[in-house]
């Protein structure tokens, strides 16, 4: 569980940058791109060790380089470039995987686990390595914070400050490749991208500040990974990776609906805005009616107001009454108060003209 939390933390942090750089799917691509490296190193070493993961990092980096080559030298879109890298590397990986399957060793099971990931099989020494690497990555993020921060939001500005954008990109991609390779143990190749995308996306619905975004996204991914690991340790048949992904996606959808910038908030805001506009129109109508009269505080019948004010006249009049802009001395007659007249001052000239 400590392992998943650590990996989730790093993923949550890096995910913020990928999200803001609009490179969310690069995680998916790099995760698939680790497969040939892992397979080739396994074929060379003939045993399961951490060096295999080094192969994964190498081939992920190669994939990232080729991605840059494609986007630089062709007119193909970023999307297609990612797709090409993803499928080419994964295809090569399967090609080598078919050789591994023919080997007599029983240890090939370890490779198969990388496809889907299972946190319960982590050994203690593996955990230590993961922890060390995670600390290293965190250290690097903090070390490069200003560079990453600036170049994420304004590439040209950062270039003008003397920070070479490609250098930052390379550092960032190395960090990403290492992180993704670490996550393979826990969630597997297919689902890594979700860890990178979902938590920052959920956090994005609550804030506009990068620091808070980071913290929130780390919290979300930690909650999801703890819960996911816990559930999969209780229920024997459920794999860790998919459970984590389902939980974190639930958090994301929840945030999408209820977040400060989510759907519900937007809807309520829209309703409030419309109501405010209706109130204003009603007040202006009072003034419009008063145009011919010398007394601006003259009373009007509700029917006349309803004729212009369209729907829900009563509701709007009542809320205006509460705010003290109008008065209701008798039955169906309504009139402006002095406060209401003051509120209408900016409109007064326009209408009387």
């Amino acid at each position, binding site marked *: 569980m400590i392992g998943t939390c650590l990996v989730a933390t790093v993923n949550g942090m890096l995910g913020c940058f990928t*999200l803001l750089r*609009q*490179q*969310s*799917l690069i995680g*998916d691509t790099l995760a698939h791109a680790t497969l040939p490296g892992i397979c080739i190193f396994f074929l060379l070493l003939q045993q399961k060790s951490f060096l295999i993961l080094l192969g994964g990092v190498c081939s992920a980096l190669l994939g990232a380089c*080729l991605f840059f*080559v*494609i986007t630089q*030298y*062709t*007119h*193909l879109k*970023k*999307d*297609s470039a*990612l*797709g*090409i890298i*993803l*499928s*080419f*590397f*994964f*295809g*090569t*990986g*399967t*090609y080598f*995987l*078919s*050789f591994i399957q*023919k080997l007599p060793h029983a240890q090939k099971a370890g490779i*198969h686990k990388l*496809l*889907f990931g299972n946190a319960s099989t982590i050994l203690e020494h593996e955990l230590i390595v993961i922890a060390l690497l995670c600390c290293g990555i965190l250290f690097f993020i903090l070390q490069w914070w200003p560079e990453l921060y600036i170049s994420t939001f304004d590439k040209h500005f950062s270039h003008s400050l003397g920070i070479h954008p490609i250098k930052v990109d390379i550092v960032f991609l190395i960090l990403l490749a290492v992180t993704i390779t670490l996550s393979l143990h826990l969630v597997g190749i*297919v*689902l890594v*991208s*979700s860890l*990178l*995308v*979902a938590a920052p*996306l959920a956090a*994005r*619905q609550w804030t506009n500040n990068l620091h808070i975004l980071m913290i929130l996204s780390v919290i979300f991914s930690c909650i999801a990974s703890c819960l996911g690991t816990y559930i999969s340790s209780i229920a024997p*048949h*459920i*794999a860790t*990776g*998919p*459970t984590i*992904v*389902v939980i974190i*996606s639930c958090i*994301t959808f929840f945030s*999408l609906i209820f977040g400060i*910038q989510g*759907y519900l908030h*937007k809807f309520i805001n829209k309703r409030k805005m419309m109501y405010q506009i209706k109130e204003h129109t009603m007040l202006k109508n009072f003034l419009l009616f008063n145009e011919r009269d010398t007394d601006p505080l003259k009373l009007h019948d509700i029917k006349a107001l309803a004729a212009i004010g369209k729907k829900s006249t009563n509701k709007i009049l009542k809320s205006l009454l509460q705010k003290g802009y109008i008065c209701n001395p008798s039955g169906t007659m309504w009139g402006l108060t002095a406060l209401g007249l003051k509120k209408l001052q900016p409109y007064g000239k326009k209408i009387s003209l």
Partner: protein
Amino acid sequence: MNIYHEILLIACVTASACTLPGVFLVARGIALISDAISHSILLGMVIAFLCVHSINSWWIFIGALISGMLTVGLTEFLSHAKYIKKDAAVGLVFPLFFSIAVILINLYASSIHLDTDAVLLGDLVFTPFHRFIIQGLDYGPITLWSMSAILGINIIGITLFYKELMVSIFDPDYAHSISYRPNFFHYALMLITSITIIGAFDTVGSVLVISFIIVPAATAHLLSYNLAYILLHALGISISTAIAGYILAQYTQGSITGAITLVQGIVFFSILGILNYRKKPS
């Protein structure tokens, strides 16, 4: 026709059926939606399987199609929200669908053939064993027939609506202004893509079908700027790489699909290299 020829033929038909919608996806810049569809159709398949308890049923195809289109719709819907870019929406939706499917398999269907490895990787070698038999007569593998049908649908659809598809992909606003309804064609394209992916699913697996769709199409986009030529180039490249990959796999005794994707990738990068090498002196 012996079994090796059948495998080769299936590989060629699948590759050419996949590449036709791929050309349009690459041109539109939404190639990775094929990745999303190919992963999330698993959910529809699993749910349909749990409902009807049989593997060879039309319901599985329909379930897969529905979940594929649901992915497309959900991605479109999410990407209209304020802070979600399209790629983030894709990255959010398909892992969710896929992991729900994996959990469902873990829970209810762990004993049956719907093996997650087989789903991800697929294998051409086993395709000739499911025969299409009517009244005792053997008409060849089922996959060959289904993929040929899909290839036929793709060719007919593209030739019938060539003009409309072209306009609505390169300039949706213009298409809208001459009342071609680009949205309709977008979803029609997605439908065709989903059907193709579902058809190619058990032959090449959910990840490598992306290679079949994107890589030859992207290579063809490097070679030409004319859509008709691009389509022809893509067909030629996909068929020739399928044959070359098959030969490589036979020679080295490796996975056929893996070898085909390997060849496709190598062809792409060598064409990229040659084109840029030629460009530089001039």
